[in-house]
């Protein structure tokens, strides 16, 4: 390694498991994960709302945990397991969180919904509950719904938690 050589590269090879499928791309180093997903893989469920890590519309699962894909480089996702809303349903069978959102009318325009659903998937996977209404509101603090449909979103999550507590 020579001291004058500039370390690193301006493009990066990213290999990740995306919705269960291995994917590889070479992208400019500055590429954000949300742009890799939307523009390279055509997965447009993660939306860019604020672009300043405030709204959570771009939330995806990174090794099972919710993260804001507008605030993560695609390069950081190399080797990771990424899941977007497109990868939740099993064929025609909705994921239980999607089903609960439908059941409880937890969406209006739908812009925040993919991020909101993934935030809930991550919450339920990490927190065995039982969850109070306050817990749920607090845990979804990173996801804004501009239609302000929070009541029904919280209802959907409490219903899911209630069902799993009941057994």
């Amino acid at each position, binding site marked *: *390694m020579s*001291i004058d050589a500039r*370390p690193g590269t301006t493009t990066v090879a990213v290999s990740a498991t995306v919705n269960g499928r291995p994917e590889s791309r070479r992208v400019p180093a500055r590429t954000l994960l949300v742009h890799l997903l939307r523009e390279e893989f055509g997965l447009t469920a993660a939306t860019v709302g604020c672009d*300043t890590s405030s709204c959570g519309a771009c*939330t995806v699962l990174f090794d099972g945990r919710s993260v804001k894909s507008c605030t993560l*480089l695609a390069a950081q996702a190399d080797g990771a397991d990424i899941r977007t809303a497109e990868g939740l349903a099993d064929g025609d069978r909705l994921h239980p969180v999607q089903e609960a959102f439908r059941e409880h009318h937890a969406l209006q325009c739908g812009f925040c919904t993919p991020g909101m659903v993934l935030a809930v998937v*991550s919450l339920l996977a990490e927190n065995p509950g039982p969850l109070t209404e306050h817990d749920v509101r607090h845990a979804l*603090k990173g996801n804004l719904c501009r239609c302000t449909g929070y009541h029904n979103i919280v209802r959907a999550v409490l219903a899911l938690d209630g069902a799993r507590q009941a057994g």
Partner: protein
Amino acid sequence: MIPASVHYHRARDLTEALELRQAYGDQLRPLAGGQSLLPALKLRRDRVDTLLDLGRVTELSYVAYRDDHLAVGALTRYHRLLDDPLVDRHAPLLAMAAAAVGDRQVRHLGTVGGALAQADPAADVPLALVALNAVVVLRSATGVRQVPVAELAVAPGVTVCRPDELVTEVRVPLPGPARWRYLTFARPALEWSLVAVAVADSRVALAGMGPTIRRAYGVESALAQGAGVAVAAARADEGCDPPDDARASVAYRRHLSRVLVARALTDPGTTVEEPR
């Protein structure tokens, strides 16, 4: 918004990361969780020649009990502090501070070392670490040194960590405090705290009250001299230099610090987190 064009290198391990720091210094910028650095790069508030991604340096992600201290690796993410039984048992104040950070998405990526290196005067986990009298370990390819967390930051975003060094660990002295409390005051809609206070036995630390997180020595000495809570808390903002910005005035922040310290001292035995 995307960052300006950058070079990128993913460090294989700590040894390689330190060798590169040694060779290139300031030309390289460590990237840990990216929860401070990426927003700054996207807004073009910060510029970086080459990013040194520490994401693969998993050897720095740990919580370890070592008799007279609890060691937390620099790349330990916030969410780990909330779940770790050792933290729960030996340094619950740390978990309370981590719970106050941003939201779950931020806590899934942000790291303890990144928060310390970022030197934000309103940062939660560094505040708890100051109250706990913790020490940070700075390592280079040629040596290692320890600095009290209270002396790491010298100005917002500026620390004594040299361009050839990395923050590798933070050590919380044990046994931990018998009494602790963590209180923040924030606007609930995703705002950092305006002012936050951490109490650990006789130590009281404040965030948001100056260019760096600081101990409230006026309060501590009043308490040591046997003063009551009201008298001690009235000295909370002594020697402080809080900012005047769009979110709060200097007078308001001074007032908040006195109120929060009084509350924290009134019931220092509990572990209740102020709901945010």
